């Protein structure tokens, strides 16, 4: 499979961006009030599920292709923990948050988590965001 590494990575990155962008759009429309229904409409939810399933598949593929040494410093483990946090915050931002303030706070926190994960993935370093800021 290593011969398909560039394509799979591109698929992964594309779906990461697509997933994040869709979340951003959904969160913003929900905050906007009158357009809020759009964010939770069935086609939008299914689009989100589809993107995330492809993203996950590509992630699993990358995981088997790359040698384990690549993950030795724990950046992937950190990212996975943050993924759980991101998903949790995401559901509160879009669905479970009872008040508008809670939804907004969770939305902002989710975006910050996403940005952190993005930085970790780019730098292959659990402290990637800090290093990026210091640099």
């Amino acid at each position, binding site marked *: *499979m290593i*011969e*398909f590494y560039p394509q799979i990575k591109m698929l992964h990155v594309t779906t990461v961006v697509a997933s994040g962008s869709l979340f951003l759009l959904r969160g913003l429309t929900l905050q906007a009030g009158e357009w809020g229904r759009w964010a939770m409409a069935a086609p939008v939810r299914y689009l989100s599920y589809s993107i995330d*399933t*492809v993203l*996950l*598949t590509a992630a*699993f*593929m990358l*995981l*088997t292709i790359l040698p*384990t040494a690549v*993950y030795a410093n724990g950046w992937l483990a950190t990212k996975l923990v943050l993924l759980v946090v991101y998903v949790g915050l995401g559901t509160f931002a879009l669905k479970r948050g009872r008040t508008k303030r809670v939804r907004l706070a969770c939305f902002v926190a989710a975006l910050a988590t996403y940005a952190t994960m993005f930085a970790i993935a780019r730098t292959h370093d659990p402290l990637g965001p800090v290093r990026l800021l210091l640099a």
Partner: protein
Amino acid sequence: MNNAKRLWIGLTVLLAVSFGVLLWTGGEIHRKAPPMPETVVTEDGTVVFTRADIEQGRQVWQSIGGQQLGSIWGHGGYVAPDWTADWLHREAVATLDAWAREGYAVDDFASLLPEEQAYLSRRLQDRIRLNTYDADTGTITIDADRAAAMAEVAGHYDRLFGADAELGDLREAYAMKNDTVPDAAHRASLAAFYWWSAWAAVTERPGKEITYTNNWPAESLVGNEPPASAYLWTVFSVLFLIAGIALLGWHHARSGEEERPDKLPESDPLAMTVVTPSMRATAKYFWIVIALFLVQILLGAMTAHYQVEGQELYGFAISDILPYSLTRTWHTQLAVLWIATAWLGTGLYIAPAISGHEPKFQRLGVNLLWVCLLVIVVGAFAGQWLAVMQKLGLEHNFWFGHQGWEYVDLGRFWQWFLFIGLGLWLTLVGRALWPALRRRNESRPIVVLLFLSTVAIGLFYGAGLMWGEHTHLSMVEYWRWWVVHLWVEGFFEVFATAVIAFLFTRLGLLKVSTATVAVLFATIVFMAGGVLGTLHHLYFAGTPTAVLALGASFSALEVVPLAYIGFEAWHTYKLGHATPWMARYRWPILFFTAVAFWNLVGAGLFGFLINPPLPLYFMQGLNLTPLHGHTALFGVYGMLGVGLMLFCLRGMKPAAEWSEPVLRTCFWSLNIGLAGMALMTLLPIGVLQLIAAIKHGYWYARSAEFMQQPLIDLLVWMRVPGDVIFSVGAMALAWFVARLWIAPRKPAPVGAAGQETARS
């Protein structure tokens, strides 16, 4: 004579004749099975193998998981090769290479001109297909060239099943752990067994031009091609199918609309059912169903993952502790176990509900059986782990280890234990049903039918006890398919049809007389094909041509009722909307409708795809087999198990409010996930393998060379979306069941619950 009586007589005669023929065929298989030689000697009298070597080799093969790691005569797992076809190809190539070096001074057979290759291949066919078995002395005589080629192949297997570093990549491609068989003597006898299976596949029956396995596997180098009978009976089977469809169509046209009850009940009749202590005790059967189902999915994911990383799971050396043959064994066994547990639980739940009678100590019996089932699962699995890790020794393997027969893998002791457990189940259901069986009212025939199907489920598992440790492979296969086909596919189906019809009569939606006739008729129709259809699994298992003819003809008839399953699906769906309170049963009904859908797609279409002899000659053991396996076993019986479980839970927790979103997620995820797995991975890989098998021979379609191509790898990965969606469905089901006990939703009044659901 009334209609029902005529049908009862018809069913009895049909079963008597079908089983008579099936048993006669068993006798024929026994008489015409490929012989087990006492010795295999070269022309100068050197002993190459003895019967003891071959028999011990089979024990070794069984102890490492047998059919769960690669396959023999096409029956077994799909990642490692078919050892019969692999041996045959390697032996043919070794002989031809040697002749090419000697006669033409080239490196190998592939370097020869086509006409030279044709000459040598013909020479090989004349020698290798010749039957040199002497029945009087029990000796097979081989020439020196063949002995040399066999030694070369045996050497390859010795290194493959050991820890030879050079073959590490191949082991990884086959998902075999290093040192699969640590003992060198065991590896040598394993080779003897593989050779014997290949000998039977290439040696012509005395006085005939077909081999013991009806020329299976396809291998042009040795002249193995589909026999004329495969073409003939394939065409005839299609004719029988069309004729059967026409006949049943005529019947449906004649019989018209069924009689409906004059007045439908105004509220749910079952809501008044008194839940007795023993009925309540069946709850834990359903909890264990959920637990086993989740573990089965996890093991399935690991088994599938072994196709991309042969010894690892994301960098973790999993094959050292849980090798492929174990994950696959447990995955396939758990499928039968959790589905069977759901049905056992259903039987125990509805029996007192039907009769209104709670026999003494019934609850104790239910609890005891549950503990027995747990002990069987844990004990049998522990034995299998010890066997595959080669810690048990051959002596105890048959009784306590791994029998190596797919779906009947558990050691003989555990098989007996399960058989006794099923006897206990039968007793418990029987004694609870007894008052209803004795009551001479109009419900009696359908209760009798339900009871007879439980008797059949209890007793027919006994077919799995009919073989011994050294019974001939062909005969083991014969009895094994009694269990897998007759028990699982036949009598589970009778039980399912009877139980669903019965539930509808209890709900007051069907007249008992109509339901009885419909169930009897349905049973006759699918038993007409089902009993002798068992033989379609045995075309190439060292059996005579009669098996091929009977199996092809009758298994085509199995598909006939499936062509009309739309009637049943619509009927079920309609009943689901017959009264407002039926909304309470919306989800069990939808699962029953899904059963009908997958019966058509998984059992009917994907089943018939591999059913006739000619397709199966190329397709058995390719990914088209799990395509049928997953969509039929989960699609039909799994969905049914879930449906029945939901039905029982409705009664057990009558006041609980069911979460629509959770059940909707569960239902659609399971269906979409299953379709995804089937259509995105199994079907495309299967079709690619089929083309390869037809073009280059069966061995190639199963070889590492073919299966390790990037395209196949990619298709395997395409399973992930489907599998993830499927898992979400299973987790939703687990969540739903858990919530019925843990912090259930605010109870709503019984009558109102349905209406609320209907509105939502």
